[in-house]
């Protein structure tokens, strides 16, 4: 079992004991990482409630339904609904408190074999799986090599299929049927994203209704998820097939305002039937960046290939817009974009 612990407002000595306790959890088959609170979702927060910042962080964690272990006084009326720890707790006591709190907030886990290392989302779906609402089927086919993005674009077992995907103990749900990616925590999502251009993934096909009991701590646009993953690992991706591409749908780029290059690629793809090399030339981008965008858009099911009429090719610029191209350029410049 993999657990993300965060701590806030602890003294150096207490922080050291918490980190040792996290390491000691390995004796219970729990691989815990303990890091500073950064505002993202985690499994458990340990904070000092006698400190102003600690109380502030505890408040945030409670709003996010994150379990909290707090150092301080149980009579502190400003903080309630947390498990209290003595500041003098030794490493063993801290490890026990952490383990007990994790078991309390994840009761299903206690019935599992300690040797199992299934990700949390798999655990939490067990009840629904028994009811037949949420079923996963391994479609990894023994292949764990090859960039995940390429496999998601080319492997018929994986293309445009809702999948539960696991990499290095982190599990996410790739849901092309919704255009979303979900995970039990943001850290799982970000970690998985950074491995999209590499191998080592396990995929399970999801069928049935998304279980309401599934812990969704993070949800994001699938297109943006693929795009960031492709850009970050662009050096590992193979060249795109040398075929003519068009767009079947606009990618959902709303949460990627910093990826202006992707917008330039989309702009070129709008013309329809363009080769990767032509996209690079027309958008004045390095071929590697174009390749990354194409693999991301391909995995998201947004591209058409030569011989298929691209839907967006039929778009005609509206006459009034052409007449005001100068104004559009000034508008674009104001909002941080250069229109050729």
């Amino acid at each position, binding site marked *: 079992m993999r657990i993300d612990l965060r701590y806030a407002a602890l003294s150096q000595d207490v922080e050291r004991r918490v980190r040792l306790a996290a390491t000691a959890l390995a004796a219970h088959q729990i691989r815990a990482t303990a890091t500073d609170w950064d505002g993202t979702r985690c499994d458990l927060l340990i904070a000092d409630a006698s400190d102003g910042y600690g109380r502030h962080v505890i408040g945030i964690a409670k709003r996010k339904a994150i379990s909290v272990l707090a150092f301080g006084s149980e009579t502190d009326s400003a903080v309630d609904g947390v498990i209290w720890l003595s500041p003098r707790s030794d490493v063993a006591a801290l490890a026990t408190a952490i383990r007990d709190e994790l078991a309390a907030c994840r009761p299903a886990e206690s019935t599992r074999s300690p040797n199992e290392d299934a990700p949390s989302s798999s655990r939490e779906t067990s009840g629904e799986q028994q009811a037949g609402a949420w079923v996963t089927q391994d479609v990894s086919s023994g292949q764990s090599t090859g960039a995940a993005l390429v496999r998601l674009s080319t492997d018929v077992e994986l293309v445009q299929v809702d999948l539960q995907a696991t990499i290095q103990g982190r599990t996410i749900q790739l849901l092309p049927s919704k255009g979303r990616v979900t995970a039990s925590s943001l850290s799982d999502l970000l970690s998985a994203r950074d491995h999209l251009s590499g191998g080592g993934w396990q995929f399970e096909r999801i069928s049935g209704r998304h279980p309401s009991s599934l812990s969704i701590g993070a949800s994001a*646009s699938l297109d943006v998820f693929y795009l960031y993953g492709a850009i970050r690992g662009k050096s590992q991706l193979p060249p795109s097939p040398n075929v003519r591409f068009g767009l079947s749908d606009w990618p959902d780029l709303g949460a990627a305002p910093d990826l202006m290059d992707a917008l330039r690629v989309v702009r070129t793809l709008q013309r329809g039937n363009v080769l990767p090399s032509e996209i690079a030339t027309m958008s004045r981008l390095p071929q590697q960046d174009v390749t990354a965008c194409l693999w991301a858009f391909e995995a998201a099911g947004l591209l058409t290939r030569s011989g298929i009429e691209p839907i967006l090719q039929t778009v005609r610029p*509206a006459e009034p817009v052409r007449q005001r191209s100068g104004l559009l350029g000034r508008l674009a410049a104001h909002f941080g974009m250069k229109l050729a």
Partner: protein
Amino acid sequence: MHTDEVSVTDLEAAKLVFAGPVGAGKTTAIRSISDGDPVSTEMPLTDGPMGDKTTTTVALDFATVVLDDGTPLLVYGLPGQDHFSFMRPIVINGAIGVVLLLSGHDEDAPKHCEQWLSSIREIDEDIAIVIGITQSDLAASFSLRPIRDAVRRCGRPVPVFTFDARSRTESAHLIRALLVSAQ
């Protein structure tokens, strides 16, 4: 008007319209990109006075953005209520584009999407449109697919972005997509 007064109507001005149902985040998005807080307007009651009450506050937002060369961009937020639909052609006419906002929290978002796209295109068939979906991160069951399907049913495809209306950079990115799609 006195000659020393300058009105935005005297200058070359661009108009951008934010549309969408009530609660989609139009005011928030306008606030995030504009130079100042948007102002709301009061309009006469369409059915005439109700006793002493002769006006009602409509959710028409107005704000300005001054471009780098001094050209004003006039930003309007249409009222979301159907009974103010008569205002749509008045506001949309002459606009460079429409940003249609929908709430990801709203189960009827695909239906609203079709209604608004049809309504906007009845006014100006060729106008550039971009769709922004707010609050998608708050709805665990949010799905982009039904909205993409609704867009396809309405004909010409338009960009569909999920975004945070509070973020200036993400709202600005929506406008970039509008400009790219308009080219």
